[in-house]
């Protein structure tokens, strides 16, 4: 493009085009309005400069119809832009089904990703083109933010909660991955590349990475090692909720309320089990706060999710 000077970021995801349409529409509108006002002011400044022969009589310095008109017009235009932006934004809440879920963990100062097959990479993320990818984000220390300009997506990774961001890459290539939330000394080095590749290349790449245990399998090992299985297995003597198919299911609580078992609920149930107690069970579960770190939490969540074969991850807003 023009002398190697970039003017626009690459459009490489399914939503990039529609975000850009809104952007350019808004750009055209603001440029038109801004230029109109500039021209108007310059025109007045020249026409009514001191000593000019312009007509100056009549007219009080206000005009109610004019003021009402521009107030209403501004409101209407503002609401249109608001609605458009909001509709596009709410798609963040509803990823297409059959998504590939990758765990992303931010820590000072690197991004660590784990694919469902257990493949691990740092500051690099390989994704297949044409397949929706949900990155479930957590942070080990401070707030980070997962930002891929070419995909027009950004989401903070906040310590103490799981957040999700999804995208569908539709153009193979290598794109910048940034941390967009200031996170300390090497903030600007925290990032790397997202490589979008055709599905068959992605499969080959996964193959090359060697197969470790899957994230869910690691989670299952942890589930046993921490003794969770001791109570939550069907054969157990302690009465604890059966976790098969738990993810995405409504759970009745002992205070007559019902919550959906989403990332937030599962995380809280592990770290703060007294907060929401499933109806009909005694609050006997100990807190695992301080016993599992963020990486292990991601394994446990992956395992619990794998117990719900049908449920595709809905990216529930974190509460």
């Amino acid at each position: 493009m023009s002398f190697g000077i970039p003017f626009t970021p690459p459009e490489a995801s399914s939503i990039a085009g529609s975000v850009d349409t809104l952007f350019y529409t808004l750009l055209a509108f603001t440029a038109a309005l801004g230029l109109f006002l500039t021209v108007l002011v310059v025109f007045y400044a020249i026409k009514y400069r001191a000593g000019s022969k312009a007509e100056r009589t009549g007219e009080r310095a206000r005009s109610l119809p004019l003021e009402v008109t521009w107030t209403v017009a501004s409101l209407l235009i503002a609401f249109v832009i608001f609605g458009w932006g909001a509709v596009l934004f709410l798609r963040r809440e509803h990823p297409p089904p059959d998504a590939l879920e990758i765990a992303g963990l931010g820590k000072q100062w690197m991004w660590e990703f784990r694919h469902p097959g257990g493949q691990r990479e740092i500051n690099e993320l390989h994704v297949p083109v044409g397949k929706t990818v949900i990155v479930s984000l957590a942070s080990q220390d401070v707030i980070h933010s997962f930002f891929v300009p070419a995909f027009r997506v950004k989401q903070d990774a906040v310590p103490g909660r799981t957040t999700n961001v999804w995208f569908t890459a539709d153009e193979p290539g290598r794109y910048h991955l940034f941390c967009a939330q200031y996170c300390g000394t090497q903030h600007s080095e925290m990032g790397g590349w997202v490589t979008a590749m055709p599905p068959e290349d992605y499969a080959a790449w996964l193959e090359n990475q060697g197969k470790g245990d899957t994230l869910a399998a690691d989670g299952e090992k942890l589930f046993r090692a921490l003794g969770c299985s001791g109570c939550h297995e069907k054969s157990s003597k302690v009465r604890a909720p059966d976790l098969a198919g738990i993810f995405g299911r409504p759970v009745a609580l002992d205070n007559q309320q019902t919550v959906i078992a989403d990332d937030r609920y599962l995380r809280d149930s592990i770290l703060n089990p007294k907060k929401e107690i499933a109806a009909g069970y005694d609050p006997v579960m100990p807190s695992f706060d301080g016993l599992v770190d963020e990486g292990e939490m991601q394994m446990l969540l992956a395992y619990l999710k794998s117990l719900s074969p049908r449920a595709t991850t809905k990216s529930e807003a974190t509460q």
Partner: protein
Amino acid sequence: MSTTTESVAFDTRAREKAADTFGMWVFICSEAMLFGAVLLLFFFARSSYGPAFAAASQHLSLPLGTLNTAVLLTSSFAIALAHMFTASRRWRPAVWALICTGLLGTIFLFIKAMEYASEFKEGLAPVLGAPFRFSGPDPTHAELFFAFYFAMTSLHALHLICGIVVIAGMLLLWPGTTEAKRTHRVQAVGLYWHFVDIVWVFLFPVLYLINRA
């Protein structure tokens, strides 16, 4: 300008008095936002960790907390009396009422300090790296409760200390102060003192009275 107004901006005492009262109220509203913000954080934490907060709250001393509330309410009564006496130009009782106010404030701080000391001894004070020992079911969030407890009560105590210092200063300058200015200052300090009292009136149930039943 005339000596009856403190500020050159006013031509009459009455106008200045109204302005003073209003200014004090605006300042109090500003302070209310300060404590409101901290309370907001507390309510969110409590709604997330209710049982832990209830368990932790049981470890505060209800008798001392109640006594302290009574002490502070009495001090408010005393400074309200001081204001009443200045209005009818009875200076001697006014001074005594002010001295009482300051003393009651000091007693409050003394009792508070005793509470702090016993909490430190019990290992309930997660302050300055002191070890936190809590035998309840959820020590992590009990620690959060005590963090709030110390933050909120020390912020309140700081306000009270400011009030005591101002009353002491006012009493030191008392002999050389014109009568009009005395009334005026007692009223301003009184408004502040009552506000600090109101803050405690909210802190007491919020911190001490969770789930005593």
